[in-house]
């Protein structure tokens, strides 16, 4: 089969039907279709409204703490003995991860649409905490669906959400993890269509979510571009980010898509290894299908039943991936590497010890592949890594993995 040709205008995607090439779309029950169309129109209007952006930018500056730094990781650079490595410090945002960028955009849209109730799904709890945070800030009731298994292993984040006034509903259906939480949030939305806004946390799901979440996260890549030009006087040779659903990665990649000289690397979670059934690498180990409103790469069996993902990082523990990544993968504009649980744990400790930064286990997957990326770009290159979140939430998981009781 011929490789699909690369489009020369990436900003034209998705098309009006929400397609990135063959991926994306709006595969939802009829009850939701009118709402999905309404959301599409409302977002298009907001996107074209300077007042919306002015308000969003104000909150991003004063509440979230943007812009965050582009930081030269000097000792890691020396460690890999090659290109200059920079961190885009998303972990310094309020709530400790990139998730808040998207939540702030969507809560303003929900208010604009007159919605009075917010629902969300969460895996590790980072998106749940960010959603609960903006709901508290704007005085809207918030229900967060979370797999019962995740509620058990992420107790501190459940308590944080409760402190912020959100109700956390444990989901016991299926395997009781992120995909089941998303099913349950969709069931809530179908049932409460008249007043409820579904605040999806990643650049996946039915159109317009993949495009909208990408746009709200693109602040990562836009700031990076400005900052690297200021510091280095040129664009980076490569940018690297971890990929679960893929929102921090697409936010970093998107402003660089047309800069063909910038290599884009996404890192998927390989869990116990791609040769086992315990991983979360949808692009590398899955095939295209339809789930949660979009066509994309999925982990599935021969009958089209969705399989459980596994990663030590709850934020990457999802059997699908955003449709724009599926498309960038097929056309070859971005490269997708994989990283096992063990490699991520090693990178977690390396970063803590060499840079004084405890990274999220999600971001540690990207850090683990810096050596490989460094080889690709050569000694004189510049690499930017999206440090998507801080690792305080992960210390119990890491302690457990290294056999320490804390």
């Amino acid at each position, binding site marked *: 089969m011929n490789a699909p040709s690369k489009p020369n205008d990436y900003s034209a995607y998705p098309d009006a039907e929400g397609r990135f090439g063959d991926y994306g779309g709006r595969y939802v029950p009829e009850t939701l279709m009118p709402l999905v169309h309404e959301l599409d129109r409302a977002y298009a209007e907001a996107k074209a409204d300077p007042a919306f952006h002015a308000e969003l930018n104000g909150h991003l500056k004063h509440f979230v703490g943007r812009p965050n730094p582009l930081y030269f990781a000097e000792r890691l650079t020396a460690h890999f003995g090659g290109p200059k490595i920079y961190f885009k410090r998303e972990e310094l945002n309020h709530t400790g991860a990139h998730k808040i960028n998207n939540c702030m955009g969507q809560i303003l849209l929900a208010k604009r649409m007159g919605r009075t109730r917010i629902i969300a799904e969460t895996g590790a709890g980072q998106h749940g905490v960010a959603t609960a945070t903006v709901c508290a800030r704007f005085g809207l009731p918030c229900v967060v669906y979370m797999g019962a298994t995740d509620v058990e292993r992420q107790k501190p984040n459940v308590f944080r959400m409760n402190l912020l006034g959100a109700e956390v509903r444990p989901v016991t259906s299926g395997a009781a993890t992120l995909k089941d939480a998303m099913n349950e949030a969709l069931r809530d939305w179908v*049932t409460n269509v008249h007043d409820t806004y579904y605040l999806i946390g990643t650049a996946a799901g039915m159109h317009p979510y993949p495009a909208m979440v990408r746009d709200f996260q693109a602040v990562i890549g836009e700031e990076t571009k400005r900052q690297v030009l200021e510091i280095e006087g040129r664009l980076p040779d490569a940018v690297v980010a971890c990929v679960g659903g893929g929102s921090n990665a697409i936010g970093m990649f998107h402003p660089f898509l047309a800069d063909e000289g910038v290599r884009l690397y996404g890192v998927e979670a390989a869990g116990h290894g791609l040769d086992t059934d315990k991983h979360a690498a949808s692009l590398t180990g899955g095939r295209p299908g339809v789930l949660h409103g979009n066509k994309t790469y999925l982990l599935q069996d021969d009958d089209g039943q969705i399989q459980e993902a596994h990663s030590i990082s709850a934020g990457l523990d999802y059997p699908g991936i955003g449709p724009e990544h599926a498309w960038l993968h097929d056309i070859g504009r971005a490269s997708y590497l994989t990283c096992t649980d063990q490699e991520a744990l090693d990178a977690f400790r390396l970063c803590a010890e060499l840079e004084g930064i405890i990274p999220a286990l999600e971001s540690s997957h990207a850090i683990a592949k810096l050596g490989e990326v460094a080889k690709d770009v050569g000694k004189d290159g510049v690499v930017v890594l999206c440090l998507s979140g801080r690792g305080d939430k992960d210390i119990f998981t890491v302690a457990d993995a290294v056999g320490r009781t804390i």
Partner: protein
Amino acid sequence: MTKQRIDARFAALKAEGRAAFVAYVMAGDPDPDTAFEILKGLPGAGADLIELGFPFSDPMAEGPPIQRAAQRALAAGMTLRGVLALVRRFRETDGDTPIILMGYLNPLVSYGFAAFAHDAAEAGVDGLIVVDCPPEEADPLADALDTAGVSLIRLATPTTDDDRLKVVVRRTSGFVYYVSVAGVTGVKEADADAVAPAVARVRAASGLPVAVGFGIKTPERAAEVARVADAAVVGSALVDQIAASLAGNQPPAPKVLESVAALAKAVRMARANTAPAAGVQA
């Protein structure tokens, strides 16, 4: 070949002046043999049409009863190929009762639309309802089904306004399924007063019979719906009988068929008691 079975059944019922009773069960629930025993018994118990669920791991519009039915079926090894085998076996003894498969898109994507449409028609499937495939995304599937002569049956809902209804009924045949509540299956109850005008609206837009489902649990409610609609669909209440039988260590088939008989009887009697309402059927 297969569309005709649905059309013939609705034409015959129209001549009788009554609505159809549609029974929904999940293929392979709780295991392939018991599921076949139930399926085989449905027409005798009074089901005029059969909706046969094909299981999916992530059924986003189902309430707990059908979610659990799908999980039981998958745990017992049911696959989409297995569902077609079940239909083929049913057709050995019943050539008339229409069978509509109902489920989610991904198992069909995985099977391949053209191969599925061909195999489904050959097995004796008459129609297909795909919950997460709105008209905007349906063309590739509709093309394959058209070639094979299998009806693509569309869902209309309380959120479907008149403009959208025109989109929804495009390329549809057999009947239209009106989802009587905004919600998942088997939780809210249908409001019979709101159903009548909605059914009339969908019937006018499509020129097809209208089946009503998603909120009918009791014979009384089924009778109310049968007075105004062309068919009443019951699913979760039947599937619950399977769960209850399993919990009580009883064989599920007799219990399910008993419920089907009670519901079917209520539907058959619905218009006999209120003769003028029968005129509603266009």
